[in-house]
């Protein structure tokens, strides 16, 4: 009955009136800019003659590939690199190191920061109502609990999107200022089916950000659930971050030990990039398998949040 848009406006109001939100936005902007300068320092003087560099590496790779005992994964990786390097030399396409696109590919790491901040905001948006006691006046309105929870959930991602766009835009502007538009037209190269393909660099970078969005979606949903169940933002933030940073390492260790069931763990599926370049964690895992596992976890987390929030007696 009460308009969903109005409920989201309310969440928006509460998010942006908290000083913490602006501190987070400030940090994100500073880090985006600092990232550009660091990247510039790292690649200063390394430019040199890219042709010579690539030719030298290809000679090395040729030698490596002659080695009969090379394991299959390394061989495949080296072959791909060799193919791409040769393509660059043949078509006069310098690699994107030390230019705008090279930097932008690296800044996809800023998504971790965006995820961190989104987790903080979404965990606080639920648990904060409980700790401030404002939950009481919030729930005695003609709006069902499901709607209130949905408004909070959706506006968390509204903030995530804002942060994402800000991070992207600021590093892009920093990159343009520091490196100019040199190499603007150079496409991204990748190998598929033994052939080298070209792709727009902009799309490639957006894709990199997008793949990290999986982590953001899953960890925010997880933090949201914890904060609904335990009404503690500290616990939700702590647990979500701990899992986000250790989860993939633990999963990799287990996979290396040869446990097959590891593929059903959430963190074995949050990184989808191997399906586009590289090898999956466990042999036989496919993109559709990972997407299915993610969907199951996603529905599970949301169902728990919804059930608990719907049933909860608000005491104290």
């Amino acid at each position: 009955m009460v308009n969903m848009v109005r409920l989201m406006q309310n969440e928006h109001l509460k998010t942006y009136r908290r000083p913490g939100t602006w501190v987070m936005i400030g940090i994100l902007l500073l880090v985006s800019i600092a990232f550009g300068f660091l990247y510039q320092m790292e690649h200063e003087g390394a430019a040199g003659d890219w042709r010579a560099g690539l030719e030298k590496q290809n000679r090395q790779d040729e030698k490596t590939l002659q080695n009969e005992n090379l394991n299959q994964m390394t061989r495949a990786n080296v072959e791909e690199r060799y193919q791409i390097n040769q393509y660059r030399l043949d078509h006069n396409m310098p690699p994107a190191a030390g230019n705008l696109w090279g930097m932008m590919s690296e800044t996809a790491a800023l998504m971790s920061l965006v995820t961190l901040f989104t987790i903080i905001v979404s965990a606080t948006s639920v648990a904060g109502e409980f700790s401030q006691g404002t939950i009481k006046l919030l729930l005695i309105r003609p709006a069902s609990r499901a709607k209130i929870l949905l408004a909070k959930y959706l506006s968390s991602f509204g903030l995530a999107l804002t942060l994402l766009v800000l991070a992207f835009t600021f590093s892009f502007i920093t990159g343009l200022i520091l490196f100019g538009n040199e190499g603007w037209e150079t496409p991204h190269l990748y190998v598929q089916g033994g052939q080298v393909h070209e792709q727009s660099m902009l799309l490639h970078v957006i894709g990199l950000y997008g793949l990290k969005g999986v982590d953001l979606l899953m960890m925010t949903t997880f933090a949201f659930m914890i904060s609904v169940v335990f009404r503690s933002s500290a616990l939700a933030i702590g647990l979500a971050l701990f899992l986000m940073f250790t989860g993939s390492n633990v999963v990799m260790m287990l996979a290396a030990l040869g446990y097959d069931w590891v593929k059903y763990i959430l963190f074995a599926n949050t990184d989808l990039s191997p399906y586009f370049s590289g090898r999956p964690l466990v042999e036989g895992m496919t993109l559709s398998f990972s997407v299915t596992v993610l969907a199951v976890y996603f529905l599970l987390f949301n169902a728990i949040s919804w059930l608990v929030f719907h049933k909860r007696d608000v005491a104290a």
Partner: protein
Amino acid sequence: MEKQPVLEIRQLTKEIGKKTIVEDLSLQVQPGEVFGFLGPNGAGKTTTIRMLVGLMSITRGKVLIQGIDLEEHFEKAIAHVGAIVENPELYPFLTGYQNLLHYWRMSRSIPKDRIDEVVQRVGLEQRIHHKVKTYSLGMRQRLGLAQALLHSPSLLILDEPTNGLDPAGIRDFRNQLRTWAREENLSVLVSSHLLSEVELMCDRVAVIQQGKLIDVKQVRELVDDTDEEQTFLLDVHPSLQALTQLQKRFPHREVEIIDNRIQLPLQRSEVPELSAWMVQQEIQIYTIQPVTRTLEDRFLQLTGGSQLG
């Protein structure tokens, strides 16, 4: 024809685990009535109120608001209710106005001017655009009332509304509540463990203890129940002699002497006869004074004298 009650509670029960917090509670609040909900701390007042506003689930029984079942049609029923549950906890990082805007967006078809109207009503015009964290408790209480009145409810539910207010604040609050109830045509349900407060504010009072309804009475009825015996204080001379004589006259009553005054239970109608008799006995009478029966006496009597919070 009988008017439809604004609030009707039918055999309301709340169990948490094996513990029964509220048991079989039934009562009705009529339009325009200020209804008190009285009981010691832990009697189940707050639990009942939380069930009335949908913060807690109902184990058994029904709550009807303007005849609408709260559990079945929560959004429709709750639209008629304005409430403060315990302290009015508002968003400290928002201004008073932003808080009201927030709640305004959550109610249906209320013109935005209504925000200014309630702000004026509670007298917060001066500070409404300041952040709530700078407000005093009294101002927060006013803002809490403003949010409760915002959507022109027909039932106002206040849980221990004067907790933490100073005496002047309590008096202000009481007067305002009466005025609003009249001007906004509101029914009010006020819970309290303070008898004096309920006595001054309410038309009718329900007394609950250990989750059970003990009695529902008119406040006036509770305070002076003329039929019954009540305690009288006699300032007479010589008091000791009077005591022995009175004990002889009323052998089955408790006649005591406290601070040189005689205390005994009497019916009002016995007083003239008794004074004539004492004059005959040459006892000098200075005063005969009824000890005013307060709601407190009545309450203690009803609840068997258990400790008040």
